[in-house]
């Protein structure tokens, strides 16, 4: 039972350059995509939750459908769009980290929107009432709502990050798992498994879980600071 732990530790301590490259790409990809999804999804979620306008319900249904997009479908879409024969071929983005981030943001943003929307719907009416009483302009109401939602925003961020770091279907398709360039933890685990090297795959799995634990602890600490 200790074997896999031993190997994981040995792998980290050996300073394996490929492992560090994989870790760096993983960190860049999952941090960028989760933060971008948060930046896009928070305003959208608050807007959907706080405002009522015609077509809102339809938008909600669309968003909830997008929340269930299978990653491979998203990956396939981006693969075809950015392929050498695809419509965006001139950007030459296929098999690069930016296109992996793009695919991830597409997958994660609906999750952020959907989760925030359901929270905002509950807190918006009293906030709106106060704002109307004070005669606040719309942008101040938005800030007030953001402030009100800080706690769930942290939780939603963790969800976004977890999705980004754990995802494999889309990133293996658009990233190609190219060593030193687009190989992330999940695609590397797949490669090792395909080579029958299960113990190394498990060692990587342990490192991935430990990473995730670290980020969760950090964000939980930050979240403690804004506890209502």
């Amino acid at each position, binding site marked *: 039972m200790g074997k896999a732990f031993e190997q994981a530790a040995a792998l980290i301590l050996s300073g394996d350059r490929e492992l560090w490259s994989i870790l760096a790409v993983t960190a860049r990809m999952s941090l960028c995509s989760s933060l971008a999804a948060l930046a896009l999804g928070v305003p959208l979620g608050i807007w959907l939750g706080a405002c009522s306008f015609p077509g809102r319900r339809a938008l909600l249904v669309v968003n909830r459908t997008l929340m269930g997009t299978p990653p491979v479908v998203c990956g396939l879409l981006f693969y075809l769009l950015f392929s050498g024969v*695809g419509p965006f071929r001139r950007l030459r983005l*296929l098999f690069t980290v930016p296109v992996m981030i793009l695919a991830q943001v597409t997958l994660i943003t609906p999750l952020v929107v959907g989760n925030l929307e359901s929270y905002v719907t509950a807190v918006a009416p009293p906030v709106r009432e106060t704002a109307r009483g004070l005669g606040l302009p719309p942008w101040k109401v938005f800030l007030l709502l953001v402030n009100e939602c800080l706690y769930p925003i942290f939780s939603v961020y963790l969800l976004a990050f977890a999705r980004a770091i754990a995802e494999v279907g889309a990133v293996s398709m658009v990233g190609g798992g190219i060593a030193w360039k687009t190989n992330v933890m999940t695609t590397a685990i797949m490669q*090792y498994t*395909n080579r029958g090297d299960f113990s*190394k795959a498990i060692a990587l799995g342990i490192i991935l879980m430990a990473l995730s634990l670290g980020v969760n602890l950090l964000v939980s600490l930050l979240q403690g600071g804004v506890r209502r």
Partner: protein
Amino acid sequence: MKTNRLLALFLVGMMLLALAACGGQPANSPAPSPAPSSDPKEAVSPSSQSEAAPSGPVVNTVILKEADDQMINTYTLLAVNPGAPFTDANGTPVSDVSVNTSGAAALIQWLLSEEGLKMAADYGVEQYNDHLFYLLEGAPVYEGAIEKATEETKTIRLSTTTSVNDSGLLGALLPVFEEQYGYTVEVQSAGTGKAIAAAKYGNADLILVHAKSQEEAFVSDGFSYVLPGFQSERLSFLYNYFVLCGPTEDPAKVAESATVLDAFAAIAEGKHTFISRGDGSGTHTKELSLWPESLGITQEAASFTVYADWYRSANAGMGACLVMAEEQKGYILTDKATFLTFMANGGKVA
């Protein structure tokens, strides 16, 4: 609140332990690590298969049939034609696909230079005591100058098969080329079918594959072209053998059959477990051509549903399939390079 957080930590800890527990077994059982250095070498040489059996070999799967003319496995380089009839997913022609032709030409020229060929032929002798690849007689040799990388051409996209990549051949060769000429080679490795598809979608500058029929279709569809100074689109330069492997007990007695075709017929007749790659790779293509025609096994899943009790289509890489064959005591077709690496590493390819 405090207890909640403790509980969460506890749960995460349990997950880590569970992962580690799963990890213990495969790490322990196929490779009792005490003597991995001497045992595999014994098991590697085909003649020693009988002696290896009673002494409890590291890996129970051994080569049963090899060096048959049917089993030659030729590796071929093909440069992607920038003027190929590329079409997008709707079938609409696309004319301005960017292909790094000079980068692809430089890599091909170097691989076919005296230095490249020698390195490829010698690869693995030191580590595995055996040649993993042999030089094809009459392979094209390039003697001219090789262009250095420029800002425009420095990234080369090579689409290749798992067997070439997993055997470590590219890992040994490419850094030498990159250092000398300033290129960066991005290797995507997948089965031959996928590697060719990537090139057809304009996502590769050259391919290195091993399935003649698929290569010829690629050429006749106009996706490859003759590089200046070479005779043909298909530049075959290395070969090794496919080998039929199986449990040391060899219940189908394939080691005694006259040819490899007889061996496959015997496996089918006795309904002995056979692990198929099932992924459109070169190895899969070869395997399909070795079954008796009367069985009618093709790439299509419908063609082997009736044989599902013994014919297992894994749709996985060579290493994963070898592990599967080992565990299920099944027969399997593999290229020799991957098999030797698998044995030498005590049941994994790395």
